[in-house]
């Protein structure tokens, strides 16, 4: 009796795990956002740096020291403008 119950229990637990996995997978943003869906990405709080001017200065010093330009990040703030 108790064995059967435990079997049923494990089966429902497995079902629950599968459902959780399905939900978790569906939650992954597999498709990149469309250009008109980038409102949240364009928010100032989504920037990697806190101060654009400070970043520019740091980059300028880095480039003059290393003799290399570019390769830092991609241009633009991710809003998909232009």
């Amino acid at each position, binding site marked *: 009796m108790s064995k059967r119950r435990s079997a049923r229990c494990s089966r429902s637990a497995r079902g629950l795990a599968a459902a959780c996995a399905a939900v978790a997978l569906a939650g992954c943003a597999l498709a990149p956002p*469309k*250009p*008109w*869906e*980038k*409102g*949240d990405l*364009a*928010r100032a709080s989504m920037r990697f740096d806190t101060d654009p001017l400070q970043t520019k200065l740091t980059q300028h010093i880095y480039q003059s020291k290393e003799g290399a330009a570019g390769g830092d990040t991609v241009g633009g703030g991710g*809003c*998909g*403008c*232009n």
Partner: protein
Amino acid sequence: MRFVPVLLVAALAFAATTQAATPGAAAPAFALPTAGGETVSLAPLRGRVVYVDFWASWCAPCRRSFPWMNALQARYGKDGLAIVGINVDKRREDAERFLRDTPASFTIAYDANGATPAAYDVKGMPSSYLIDRKGNVAAVEEGFHDERRDDVEAQIRALLAQR
């Protein structure tokens, strides 16, 4: 055999993307609410030259394009130009705040769920579609570039000259 449904879905997705608004193709129809509670759609604008502009409050070039579009509407409205600015913001308040700072003297429509930009296959923000008097897409403008203003205005003038 097992992959047939997958292929079918892929083929359908491809077919959907090839329906996009490209020059020469019929402009995808839409019916969207305006701030005043009316509905704006393409069909009643048939016979006029329509400039459909997709914009968002978070899009910096859009802010620069509005005064120019206001000037276009003022200059060519009487000749048959209709500018429709379709807002793609998720939150209406964001769009309204933008419009307080950057007033628009042309029609503004709201599409928060993005069906219209999807139908037009918008590649970047802002994007504009120039539609001729017959309802076909004449030109697609991606982004707002100051150096493109004169060309776009010339295109509008040429389309207005067509009867």
